């Protein structure tokens, strides 16, 4: 699969490279440049070049608190997604035929419906006059509607639901890649089901979990729609703060610097996952 030399077919990468260069690399450089400009109070930032935007971020305890909240939400979401997705992925890896197709369609359906539709659906269910409250009141579990929206938990539930497919698919893929004969070999050597799962299945699907976790965590960190809709203006995360700075205050330099810091944080996660998966390969125990 890997080649040391280039061949003619590599020329087919040029269109994508161009697209990437024009729509990502150039805007990224502009964003980086913007983050060092000075806020003028109007839309267009001006000179001189300054690091004030970055200093401002750390000087005021409000912004680190926002980062903290965003991380808390993202970590809990990733854990919830992992715990919920793994059994389903395990089940789906073991089935075949129509049932599998149906399951795959069901799992990916939320992705196709779009983030806005999903969130409005969750919103409708979780409002005081929504499905959940009406159901609980009908069963007399609660007498008064419970405020479910407008807090971190609502956002975590929304993100968990939305990002579940990002975990299910890579984990299922990893589970399917475990060779049948490895499992048979362990059985012939006398391992029971529990031991087989703990020592073969789980370690061998760990890569899929890491891939899924990176996707879920990254997407949660930069989420905007779910905190806005389910947080009802009360759950400030990095995404909503960037929006506020860029679109409402027109402070593009500060918004750019927050975006840069967010990117930096996401980049820090990559080496962590590398270390985790290397430990696995070297035979470390989970």
């Amino acid at each position, binding site marked *: 699969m890997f080649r040391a030399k280039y061949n003619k077919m590599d020329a087919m990468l040029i269109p994508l490279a161009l697209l990437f260069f024009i729509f990502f690399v150039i805007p990224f450089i502009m964003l980086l440049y913007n983050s060092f400009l000075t*806020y003028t109070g*109007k*839309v*267009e930032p001006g000179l001189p070049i300054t690091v004030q935007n970055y200093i401002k971020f750390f000087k*005021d305890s*409000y912004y680190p608190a926002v980062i903290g909240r965003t991380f808390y939400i993202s970590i809990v979401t990733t854990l919830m997604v992992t715990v919920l997705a793994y059994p389903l992925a395990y089940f789906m890896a073991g089935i075949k035929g129509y049932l599998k197709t149906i399951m795959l369609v069901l799992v990916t359906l939320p*992705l196709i419906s*779009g*983030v*806005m539709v999903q969130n409005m659906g969750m919103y409708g269910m979780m*409002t*005081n*006059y929504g499905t959940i409250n009406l159901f609980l009141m009908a069963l007399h579990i609660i007498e008064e*509607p419970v*405020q479910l*929206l*407008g807090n971190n938990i609502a956002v975590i539930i929304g993100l968990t639901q939305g990002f579940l*497919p*990002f975990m299910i*698919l*890579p984990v299922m*893929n*990893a589970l399917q*890649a475990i060779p049948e004969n490895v499992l048979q070999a362990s059985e012939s050597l006398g391992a029971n089901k529990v031991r087989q799962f703990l020592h073969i299945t789980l370690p061998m699907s760990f*890569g*899929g979990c890491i*891939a899924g976790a990176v*996707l879920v965590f990254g*997407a949660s960190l*930069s989420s*905007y*729609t779910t905190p806005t809709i389910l947080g*009802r*203006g*009360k759950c*400030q995360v990095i995404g909503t*703060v960037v929006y*506020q700075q860029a*679109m*409402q*205050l*027109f*402070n593009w330099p500060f918004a750019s610097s927050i975006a840069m810091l967010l990117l930096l944080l996401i980049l820090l996660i990559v080496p962590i996952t590398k270390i985790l998966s290397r430990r696995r390969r070297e035979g470390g125990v989970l």
Partner: protein
Amino acid sequence: MKKLLCLLLALIVLTSLTACGEKPAPVPSSDPAPGKTTEDEANVDKPFEGETLVVGVWGGTIEKVLRESVVEPMEEELGCSIELVLGGSSDRVVKLYTEKDNPSMDVYGLNIRESADAIINGVAAPVNPELSNFDQLYDFAQVGGYGQSIMAYGICYNNELVTEPITSWKDLWRPELKGKIAFSNFPGSEGAAIIYVTAEAWGLDLENDPDAVFAKLAELGPFPFFYTNLDELFLEIEQGNVHAAAIFNSYSNDYIAQGFPCTFVYPSDPGAILAKDTWVIAKNSKHMALAEEFVNRCIGVEAQTAYAEEIFFSPCNKNVKVSDEVAEKLVYGDDVSSLVTMEWDVITENEEEFTEKWNRMVVMAK
């Protein structure tokens, strides 16, 4: 395979995140076709034949009444076409400033502050007093853009749950209303108005001691939510999660007419706050004459009457006459002079700092 899958998923994330973004900007209207002059001579009564005017405006009921009262008659009489780009005004402000040399829209519907700033910053053309309907506007509607409708920022409350009527802004601080009040978020003109009102009502000095003002606002918390959508707000008021909300009169009358159990008041101390929807024309619009014709019709008696009668938007044109029944729902006649003109400068100059204080003290209020 795994890498491929990851890439695919990343792509899906990206598309699903951007899918909820705004609509693509419209293609700037093309210049008149060559050979237009000969056509013009043949078509003297349709001087704008073939021209396209792009107008950015709020959607919903506003779009409907604007189409019926201005867009359709204009297209028929003048032969031009008018494209409406719908959305909130903050998106339009970004476009107006970033596209100032080559604007994609000609006419912008903005709020009182945004339009005044746009003219001061030189991205919107100053008002042209030569327009034939200009003199019919109230004085305050002749500055900082062309006034389209007057808004009064007051209080709307659930009249079944709030038994003792609310009459003053200070009534929001009654102990039984704690935790039952909703505002719109700041930054934004509604958020700015409530900050201003709090300072005025309690005699606090917003400029020198803003913390006292925000602390006073925080006393009303915890806030059930910050509304961005009026359907949602009125459902919450009806359900009793919100007892009172600070809101513009025009919108609340619309919902009261639908049967929501609400009363709108023009509170005292310091009074209901004057705001207006305003038109400005991009300074470098390529269709200046057509844009001015559009604005002139919008501020004319006919369109202003339609706005008042159909969606209860109070007219900025002094010559509009409506029935008593409609007038009751409007800021009309003598009412206009009773509205308080807000001093925006302190808030505009300190918007950043106030946003941080709002985020920290009001949004997080316990």
